[in-house]
């Protein structure tokens, strides 16, 4: 059964881009372990030779014609932006 350590919890939080304090990470570990442990009852089920099912929709993939039918709505696109300038979204500097 999965035992999520504090470090593991921090790694997952980092991957999910959610800030956690040490104190929170301490609690997240057992909480996730608890849920994952419960989920792991699936392991007892034999699923050899079963095709995974991603979506039940029983239709062909819908396709569009290659036509410009959208866009040209800069105002709408930026309407809810926390920060924008001269048509751009503005974010804290990205360091590469």
């Amino acid at each position: 059964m999965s035992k999520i350590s504090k470090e593991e919890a921090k790694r997952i939080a980092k991957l999910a881009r959610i800030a956690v304090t040490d104190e929170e990470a301490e609690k997240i570990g057992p909480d996730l372990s608890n849920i994952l442990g419960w989920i792991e009852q699936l392991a007892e089920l034999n699923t050899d030779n079963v095709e995974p099912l991603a979506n039940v929709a029983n239709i062909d993939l819908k396709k569009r014609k290659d036509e410009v039918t959208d866009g040209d709505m800069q105002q709408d696109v930026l309407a809810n932006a926390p920060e924008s300038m001269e048509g751009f979204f503005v974010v804290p500097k990205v360091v590469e």
Partner: protein
Amino acid sequence: MSLTDLTIKGALEGLKKKEFTAVELNQAHIDAMAKHKDLNCYITETAGHALTQAAESDKRYASGNTLKLDGIPLGIKDIYCTKGIRTTVASRILENFVPTYESTVTSQLFAAGATCLGKLNLDEFAMGCSNETSYFGNVISPWKSKSEPNKQLVPGGSSGGSAAAVAARLCMGATGTDTGGSIRQPAALTGIVGMKPTYGRCSRWGIVAFASSLDQAGMFARTVEDTALLMNHACGHDEKDSTSSPREVPDFTQSVGQSIKGLKVGIPDEYRIDGLPEEITAEWDKGIEWLKSEGAEIVRISLPHTKYALPTYYIINPAEASSNLARYDGVRYGLRVDEGGNLNDMYEKTRAAGFGPEVRRRIMVGTYALSAGYYDAYYVKAQKTRRLILQDFEKAYEKCDFILTPPAPSAAFGIGEQIDDPIQMYLNDVFTVTVNLAGLPGLTVPTSLNSDGRPLGLQLIGRSFDEETLFRAGAAIEKCANFKAHPFKGDAA
């Protein structure tokens, strides 16, 4: 009789006969909303908007050029993007988000003349079974426990605001979404009707995505016929949703009142789970008797993988959610917490502050289940189990036309009673998630109040794209059960 106690069908007749106006009908609901603010059903009220729409309806009634839902006041679950009206998903991260677009389902309903009273509360990002995870506070059920009149009951979730508002007569019908039971379970807990159609029946375009392969829109109302009428307008093919079905939508109201003689009703052995309260089993048995009395034939069926449905669901759901919620990053809309750090700091602080505990929990479970080294053991395993669950149903439908089950393992519980135990909370969806995993339609019909005055109901599960049989059988149960209880009028049963 108060205008708010009318059925939609009754209201439409009254409007046509000019017994009252659409403005009066809407105003009656706006007054009720003001009176029952304590239930916290609405996150955003749009009375002015509804009255403007109602005035338009009245013009049409005057000219005789009316629409199918003209003037009917609806509440909209705050997960549907509504143009110019704040849409929060009950999350701090979208607290001030105002869409510049209208979801397909709501635009269809409004195009049919329905009015919008406001945006209904829900569990944050629809993650919950009790409407206790909303950033805007809990929704309180209008029903009361007889034994503990001071106790506040949950309305169920995630469409708790929708269910409570319809039950409390704060709107005549409401939209919901159902990813694992979020329409059928709250409908059961609040004594109303709720329908989740087949996956692909309703467009998902403009509805905030939670778990895309499971999410379906649906409707609440107080009668089966009203629900059928609303579903006529909620359903339909949408070119903008690649998973939306091109199938023709029948007039569902035609099914209501049709005989169920000769229909085969499947009763799954595996749903008689350990520890199920006596009252739930008893209600189920009553349902079986009602259907028999209407000429249906009862068939024992087996859905052998039922016990794996919840764990399967709690892999697929958080996995998809963790990815769907990645877009809430403080860049293009929504909350941004920027304390002067770099972009990554901004992401992490925004998402930590913007999401509540249950949302963060699911994102982390989902992130873990998809991460390197765990993907096969969790996600692929769940997809395989999902196929087995679908095959269970396909096999069962060789023997029966629809399935009857309880909608939830208990009647409404008290606020705060389960919130600290996530697994206990997840178990509330034990009878509903299978339906989402298999993409089938499901209908909840209210049947009675338990000895403590809390509503009980039944769930009907149909074949893929066979909502009609559910409306037919649901109406038969409705007739037999003759559920007339009113949350504010004592025990009227």
